[in-house]
């Protein structure tokens, strides 16, 4: 009886249910209201703190929740909509910085993935190259390469100091500021997971299908586009989805370290104690950018691979939700 029950309850939840989302939205709204009310007067926090201390004898140290560290939702909204006298705030200010970050993230995303697809195709036809480079790519894929950002920035500092770079306007445009290096960070982060996934996808074609096409003396071009690319696309999109938020992260992280524009720069300023409300706005924008990129990739996948989605739906019906998510998790 109990075992049967637990099996029933263990059925996974359908994520798209509007009621679930409504519950979540209500919880978030209530949380925001609570946050706004409790911080409307700084004394509230210390009153709660002393009440807990008096009743339980334990000091929860709620000083974290002071309005200067966790600004009220209304002051975050004000930072976003209204431009203060010093110009650090308002929609134009954030639009400018968002543009700087988004440009580097998008360009890095496109270049990194494009390069990875090109090299994966090269691997397919030049086997010796694959043998030499694939083990390195496999190793680098599982290292979170965002950690090498300080190295790249260090190289840029030196490059910017070179006389040859200072004299050449084009080279100075590339390496005199942070813009290029932010993009290169993204390219490096995005490159290896996509390379590995696409290279695997291009090779994981049905052998009977390949033999059949060979017997019809189909051209390599035809086989590439009609057989290999469709097989590789699901794996490629799995990599693109990971790359979507990774590209935003790469840009933000390099802006923390060294930049005077971008969302990461605003965040770093907030972390040091000045402009906490602006930091919150920047974090919300970053979050939305990462989600938007992810959803765009997801949407494109659904348009490009409708059969892929239907195959998944069929499998879900046949084998159950959990096994498919396991396969997807392995693929990504």
């Amino acid at each position, binding site marked *: 009886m109990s*075992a049967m029950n637990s099996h029933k309850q263990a059925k996974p939840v359908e994520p798209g249910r509007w009621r*679930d989302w409504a519950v979540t939205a209500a919880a978030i709204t209530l949380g925001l209201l609570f946050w706004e009310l409790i911080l409307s007067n700084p004394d509230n926090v210390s009153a709660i703190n002393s009440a807990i201390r008096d009743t339980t004898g334990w000091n929860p140290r709620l000083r974290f929740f002071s309005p200067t560290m966790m600004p009220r939702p209304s002051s975050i909204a004000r930072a976003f909509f209204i431009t203060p006298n010093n110009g650090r705030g308002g929609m134009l200010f954030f639009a400018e910085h968002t543009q700087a970050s988004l440009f580097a993230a998008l360009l890095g995303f496109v270049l990194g993935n494009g390069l990875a697809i090109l090299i994966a195709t090269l691997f397919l036809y030049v086997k010796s190259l694959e043998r030499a480079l694939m083990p390195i790519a496999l190793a680098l894929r599982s290292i979170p390469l965002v950690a090498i950002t300080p190295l790249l920035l260090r190289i840029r500092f030196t490059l910017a100091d070179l006389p040859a770079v200072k004299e050449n306007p084009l080279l100075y445009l590339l390496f005199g500021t942070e813009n290029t290096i932010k993009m290169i960070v993204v390219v490096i982060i995005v490159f290896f997971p996509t390379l590995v996934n696409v290279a695997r996808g291009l090779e994981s074609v049905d052998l009977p299908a390949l033999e059949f096409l060979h017997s019809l003396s189909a051209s390599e071009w035809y086989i590439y586009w009609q057989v290999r690319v469709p097989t590789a696309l699901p794996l490629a999109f799995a990599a693109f989805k990971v790359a979507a938020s990774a590209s935003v992260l790469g840009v933000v992280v390099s802006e923390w370290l060294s930049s005077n524009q971008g969302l990461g720069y605003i965040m770093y300023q907030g972390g040091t104690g000045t402009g906490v409300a602006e930091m919150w706005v920047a974090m919300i924008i970053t979050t939305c950018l990462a989600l938007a990129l992810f959803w765009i990739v997801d949407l494109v996948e659904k348009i490009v691979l409708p059969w892929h989605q239907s195959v998944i739906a069929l499998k879900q019906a046949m084998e159950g939700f959990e096994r498919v998510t396991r396969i997807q998790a392995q693929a990504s």
Partner: protein
Amino acid sequence: MERVEQAKRKKTSNGLTDAAQAYGTSALLILAVLALWQFGIPEGMSSALPKPTLIAVTIWKIAPILWDNVLQTALEALLGFVFGTLAAVLIAIGFVYSRTVARTVYPIAVILRSLPLIALMPFLVSWLGTGIMSKVVLAALTCFFPTLVNMVQGLTSVEPQALELMQTLNANEKQVFWKVRLPYALPFLFTSFKITSSAAVLGAIIGEWLWANVGLGAFIVNAMFNMQGPELWASMMVATALSILAYILAVVGEILIVPWQKNGPKIEVGK
């Protein structure tokens, strides 16, 4: 020398020879890059790209200082790993047993999973300060979602037959959990450890970059701003070694603790 080894392997198995050849080519390529780096970097770039031998010597020279920083980072990563994993496992169990928890937490988890959580570090610093707590929380956050996803999958991957067997044996909920669900879930948990162990190290290091006095991350960024090329590369190498070590520990743990595979464990009928 390598040829002798290759010849030896050839006798044992064909697959091994292939592997040796594959890694042999890569190893040669890496050696070539190192040689080019050692002798081919122009003088102007040598402060940003110091010679590999100089990096090795620097690691040796500053080892005592690095060691203190490694300890700090390892502590933060370990604490973050433990807390993040514990929270994820508990919530995953809640997911599986309570529809309400699943309904309220799942949509949030879906959103948070696709976010660059490391980007939240300035917020953690403004909230928790520049001490050890903000790094521990960041490391815990980087561990949390992979573990949650894998653990939910693991707990729900139980074969219906196993549950039916437990039912016919009149097992109670507790027995089903400890004897069926958990053994089924453990391999999934260790799969996620292979990701989260080095992710925790990464979280700790990035958390230290700009908001700490001790730790590998702080050392790396100080070396970057102070134009200390060899020190930067040396600490970078040590940081990489630390995250590889964390990964190896996860693999060893998997081999020792869950020798059974994902096909599911044998069900031992308990007393």
